[in-house]
């Protein structure tokens, strides 16, 4: 297999993770800057619980893509 194919795949994964980090950064900027306006239990739920889980699942599922694609490439 020519080397440029796995390299392109690796670059795609790197770019994908960079976009993930940018989205997290922008989300945090909005939440820290605006949503903390109401420090009540409800807003705490909005700020932390749901967002934390989405972030974990988002990052986790992106990581799962890496071994799957490389295994398929070299199988």
């Amino acid at each position, binding site marked *: *297999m*020519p080397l440029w*194919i796995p390299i*392109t*795949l690796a670059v*795609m*994964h790197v770019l*994908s993770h960079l*976009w*993930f980090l*940018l*989205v997290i950064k*922008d*989300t945090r900027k*909005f*939440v820290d*800057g*605006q*949503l*903390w*306006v*109401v420090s*009540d239990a*409800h*807003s705490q*739920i*909005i700020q932390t619980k*749901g*967002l934390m889980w*989405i972030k974990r*699942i*988002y990052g986790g*599922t*992106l990581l799962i*893509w890496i071994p799957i*694609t490389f295994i*398929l*490439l070299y*199988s």
Partner: protein
Amino acid sequence: MIHPRLDDGEQMVVALQDHWVTLVMPIFIYIVGTLLAVTLGAVGMIFFPEQEVTRGLFILGATAVGLLFHHWLFIYLFEHEISAWIITTKRVISFSFLPYVKHDVSFIIISELHEIDKRKHGLLQNILNYGDVEINLAATPAPVTFHYVPRTSAFVNLLETLHKTPPDNIVIERLRKNYFA
């Protein structure tokens, strides 16, 4: 950056997110995109098992499509999670967010409400109990519209009650129980 705060004596009554129906289309598009990616990968694996470059190109294509739709879904999950209306004893604070696209916050003072319209058109909106709320303010000619408001009647009734009730007579627990229990 301006950090808006709640006024003294202002308390939060309830926080509502967009109705879950807003997630149906992104999830459907995600499923279609994922199926497309799986199909591309399968075509490469099944029809070109010995041609490494062609198979590799199909897997690269499948990865690109799959990742694209993966990011698409999560961007809309973030939008759904953060976009919210927070109703306090004095204001309605509306947050509308889409990463790198939309960072909207608006404050509507309840005492300045002039007219509130609830719109639930169609079978789906009435079965799933969501709709639009249009708020006319005394000071502005154009109405403010909230889309995909869950439990629209409770939302409108709560605003109407807060508008009519003097601040000292507002019992938050009773309001929450009456409208959103």
